[in-house]
């Protein structure tokens, strides 16, 4: 943990707390090697979580692109209507 803490301007207890959260979430595991407790990054659950989020994002982006098209239509319809009303009685 001393090694892990070295690059951060954080106290050892603070680092230890962060590591515990990551361990609980299954993102970091702890080994055993004499006096050391080497931590290992568990990348798989992290990658999985990112993948689900990305699929969710893609699904909604599809919805929102259709919504963009609809909004453009509504804006055009609104403009045309204003034009018609604005020019009422104006015979050019």
């Amino acid at each position, binding site marked *: 943990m001393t090694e892990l803490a070295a690059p951060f301007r954080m106290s050892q207890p603070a680092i230890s707390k962060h590591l515990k959260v990551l361990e609980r979430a299954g993102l970091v595991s702890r080994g055993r090697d004499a006096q050391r407790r080497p931590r290992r990054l568990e990348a798989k659950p992290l990658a999985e979580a990112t993948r689900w989020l990305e*699929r969710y994002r893609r*699904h*909604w982006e599809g*919805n*929102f692109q259709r*919504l*963009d098209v*609809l909004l*453009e239509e*509504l804006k055009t319809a609104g403009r045309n209507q204003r034009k018609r009303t604005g020019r009422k009685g104006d015979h050019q």
Partner: protein
Amino acid sequence: MTHAVKNRGTLEVTTPSDREIAMTRVFDAPRSMVFDAWTRPELLKRWLGVRKGWTLAVCEIDLRVGGEYRYVWRKDNGTEMGMRGVYREIVRPERIVCTEVFDDKWYEGEAVDTMVLVEENGKTTLTTTVLYDSKDARDGVLKSPMATGVGESYDKLDEVLADSRFEPADGTTR
């Protein structure tokens, strides 16, 4: 999350806490228009979950506090998927809070949706946050058919086709 970049088409999805999923997106339209697109059945049927053979076949909205909404999507092969909820807050055209429950239980209990619309220079920033009863419930939704494209497998196919390692079985190319 900040709203520093306000380009249309950039959808940001985040998990602000263990129990939430949040989305932020900018639309090039005034918020009253975006609000209508979310709350008028004839407009919602044009875009919400309408893809690859799916229609929003049932869309009933009783837009008042305590009023209910009901959506049913139907695929051309007859498969259906439905959800419902109750409005808790309605501030046109800036805010809606409602509950949501899916017919197919992907998660326990009901979730609470909060939608906020902020307009600036004719553009609207939409933020939706869904708060689930538990982390498990939220994670269930991320893995649900909804998240992967309203219960169908085309996404899988897209993935396979997009995979750079994909090679046609006959081996004619590459």
